[in-house]
């Protein structure tokens, strides 16, 4: 995946799923590493690959997995109620699953809260 460095963050309770608020990618810690596809020269890393990689970390823990992703149409869909933000902008402004990750990007998954 070349030299792309970016980070994934969680808020609104999702941090409990992954055990932390922020994961730098690539990570210093082995246990935080997420599996990303091997890219061919010229191929770009997309947000859907990152979501797949994060989902893989929840494999085997089905109740938790469903809080993050759902369905199985070739690739996972983010569970309703979760906002995905790329550099503090709604991902709908940026291309959603097909967004091409840039070095320095901050991807934030926010679960909507309902309490009051």
């Amino acid at each position: 995946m070349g030299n792309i460095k970016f980070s994934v963050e969680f808020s609104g309770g999702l941090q409990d799923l992954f055990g932390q608020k922020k994961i730098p990618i690539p990570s210093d810690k082995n246990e935080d590493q997420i599996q990303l596809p091997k890219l061919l020269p010229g191929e770009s890393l997309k947000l859907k690959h990152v979501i797949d990689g994060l989902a893989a970390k929840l494999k085997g823990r089905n109740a938790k997995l469903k809080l993050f992703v759902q369905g199985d149409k070739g690739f996972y869909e983010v569970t309703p109620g979760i906002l995905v933000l790329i550099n503090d902008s709604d991902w709908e402004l940026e291309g959603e699953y097909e967004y091409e990750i840039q070095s320095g990007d901050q991807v934030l998954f926010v679960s909507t809260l309902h309490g009051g």
Partner: protein
Amino acid sequence: PSAPRWPLDKSEYKRYGRQLIMPEIGLQGQLRLKNASVLIVGVGGLGCPAAAYLVGAGVGILGLIDGDTVEESNLHRQILHSTGRVGMTKVDSARIALNSLNPNVKLVAHTSHLTPESAIRILQLYDIILDCTDTPASRYLISDTCVLLGKPLVSASALRTEGQLMVLNNPPLRAGDSRGGPCYRCVFPKPPPPESVVTCGDGGILGPVVGVMGILQALEAIKLLTRNAQPPLTSEPMLAQPSDPPSLLIFSAYANPMFRSIRLRTRKPKCAACSAQASVTAKALESGSLDYVQFCGTVNPVDAL
């Protein structure tokens, strides 16, 4: 409300002097507040501070909706209530506190939970709605009704150490007008799976976290009501100035920085509520054919729609 023509009385100049002298409010802004009616749906951790600061600022009419009674476990964060009023309806308890703070504000009590059948009838009485509730079902119902009635919606929520704030349907243009602000369904087209919904009862809540979010709701309401107060009044105060771009404020008490602002999308072209092909209509709502509780699903019975 139409443009007011009478000035304030002497005690009002005294009471509101500290905000009147600011250019952002001024005499025109104070008159706007006095002629405004605001509805607070949910008189809990968000609704209590929101109501206190709106009543302090001198809105003309404040409506309060809640079907619950005060419990001891509310008191760490629901600061309008008191130990002596445990067991009283939240609406009545709040009225006592608010009336003693500022007797000039007319308080309107709605002591049962909002339902699809009652929502239009109640919300249409107010200029701005504050969603201070605590379930997905109520959030969709309130948002849909605000879109149908063309009311701006200040929506906040909080859980554990985090809070979220959005100003929705601002400007509140008719369904299909893409210049209108996004609604709750634009941001969250599908409800979350019921098993992912954590209540304050289950997950806990830190008092100042929900308190900050509630006060920020009062602030956003005051900003909306007093916009363009300095230039001559127009017949469409909500439209005369461009609105702030839609955004989500995320508060996280233990993060650094604690606050983060996120740019949100505009109206969704196929939104079920605010697009040209909206399926949410006043008729469907009032007939009871939109079942919000079923739409959102349940794990536990929903106890606070």
